[in-house]
C-alpha cells in the first residue's frame, strides 16, 4: 500500500475513498475557480518556471550534479504538494496511479461525482497535435471543461452516463490504453485518464525522468508459463515494454520491474495465461510503486 493510501484511503486504496470525490470537498477548497484557471493555462504548464528553471531540457537539467538534485526535489515537492492553497498555474498536488479496468469501473459506477464527461486528451493535444477523446472527468472539473471549447469533442457527445463511462473504459483498455486516476489537486479526485507512452505527460516524467508523479498499480501481472502459447499478441499491448517473446522457449517473459500492473495485456491473451494479482502478494515487488 502506498503512502497516499495509508493517509487517505482509511486502510484501503486511496481512490476507493468516497470522500475524495465529493462536491463538498471541491467547494471547501474553492476548486471551481482553481480548476478553471489551471485548465485555461494547461498547455503552458511545462514552460513555466519551477525553482527558477523551466522544464525545457528537463532530462539534461536533472543530470546536472547540484541543480539536478534541487530541481528533482522542487518538482516532486510540487507534485506531492498538500498545501491548502495550491498554485493553479502549476501542477501542484497532481498525483496519480495506474488502475486496472475493474477498479476504474468501480470508481465510475459508484464513486465519481456527476456530471461525467469524456473530453479530448490534453497531453496528446499538446504533444502529438491530435484530438483524441479519452479523458474521463467528473464532478466540478466536468463543468469547468465544458466552458473550454478546445477540449469538447465534436465527433461524439461529451456528457456520458455511468454505464457509458464504464463501457468506454473497457474499450480503451482493450484498445491498449492504460487507465490512471488523478488527484487534481490533492485531495480531490476528478479524472480517469487513458494514457499511452510517450504522449502522456505523466508517463513521460515517470518513464524518462524517474519523477514520482504517478505510481504503479496496486497490482502486478502474473504469467502462467504453462498456459502461454507464444502467440505474441500481448507484446504489442504493453506501454512499458515489459513483455518480450523468447524464440528458444516459444513463450513470452515478463520484466516485473517494468510492469505497472495496468492489466491491458490480459485483453490480448486468448489462452488465459495473464492474470493480475495484488502487488503485495507478489514476492519481491510488494511496496514497489
Amino acid at each position, binding site marked *: 500500500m502506498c503512502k497516499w493510501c495509508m493517509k487517505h484511503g482509511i486502510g484501503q486504496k486511496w481512490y476507493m475513498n468516497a470522500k475524495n470525490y465529493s462536491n463538498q470537498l471541491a467547494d471547501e477548497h474553492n476548486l471551481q475557480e482553481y480548476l478553471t484557471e489551471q485548465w485555461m493555462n494547461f*498547455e503552458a504548464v511545462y514552460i513555466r518556471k519551477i525553482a527558477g528553471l523551466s522544464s525545457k531540457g528537463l532530462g539534461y537539467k536533472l543530470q546536472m550534479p547540484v541543480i539536478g538534485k534541487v530541481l528533482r526535489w522542487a518538482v516532486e515537492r510540487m507534485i506531492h504538494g498538500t498545501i491548502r492553497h495550491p498554485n493553479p498555474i502549476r501542477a501542484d498536488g497532481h498525483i496519480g496511479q495506474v488502475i486496472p479496468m475493474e477498479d476504474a469501473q468501480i470508481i465510475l459506477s459508484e464513486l465519481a461525482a456527476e456530471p461525467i464527461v469524456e473530453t479530448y486528451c490534453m497531453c496528446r493535444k*499538446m504533444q502529438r497535435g491530435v484530438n483524441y477523446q479519452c479523458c474521463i472527468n467528473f464532478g466540478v472539473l466536468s463543468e469547468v471543461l465544458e466552458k473550454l471549447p478546445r477540449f469538447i469533442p465534436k465527433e461524439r457527445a461529451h456528457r456520458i452516463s455511468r454505464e457509458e463511462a464504464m463501457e468506454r473504459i473497457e474499450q480503451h483498455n482493450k484498445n491498449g490504453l492504460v487507465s490512471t486516476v488523478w488527484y487534481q489537486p490533492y485531495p480531490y479526485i476528478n479524472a480517469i485518464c487513458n494514457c499511452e507512452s510517450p504522449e502522456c505527460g505523466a508517463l*513521460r516524467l515517470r518513464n524518462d525522468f524517474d519523477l514520482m508523479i504517478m505510481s504503479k498499480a496496486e497490482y502486478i501481472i502474473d504469467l502462467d508459463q504453462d498456459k502461454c502459447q507464444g502467440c505474441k499478441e500481448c507484446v504489442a499491448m504493453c506501454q512499458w515494454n515489459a513483455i518480450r517473446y523468447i524464440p528458444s522457449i516459444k513463450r513470452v517473459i515478463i520484466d516485473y520491474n517494468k510492469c505497472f500492473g495496468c492489466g491491458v495485456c490480459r485483453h490480448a491473451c486468448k489462452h488465459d495465461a495473464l492474470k493480475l494479482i495484488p502487488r503485495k502478494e507478489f514476492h519481491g515487488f510488494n511496496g514497489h510503486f
Partner: protein
Amino acid sequence: MGKTKIKIDYSKCGPDGNVDPRDCAKCLNVCDPCVFLRHEDLKYKEKNIYDPQHWKITAIWPSVCTRCYKCVETCPENAISIKW
C-alpha cells in the same frame, strides 16, 4: 551522447511567422518520442487562445530526441534546426 540542441525559428512558425502551429503541427505528428510541445506563448499578458500569434512550438524534451531528423525534413517552413 552529448546534448542535442533543437531550435525553432519563430520568424517562420509561431508568434512572428506566417504559420499557425495549431493548423500545421507536422513536427508533433512526425516525432516518435514526442520531443515537441505546442503551447501558448507566455509573453502575452492578455490571454486569447483564438489568436494564432499566441501559439508556438517548443522542443521541450531534447534529451529524448533520437536524432532521426524527421522533423527537419517534414517542416514545411524549414523552421527546425538540430545541432549536437
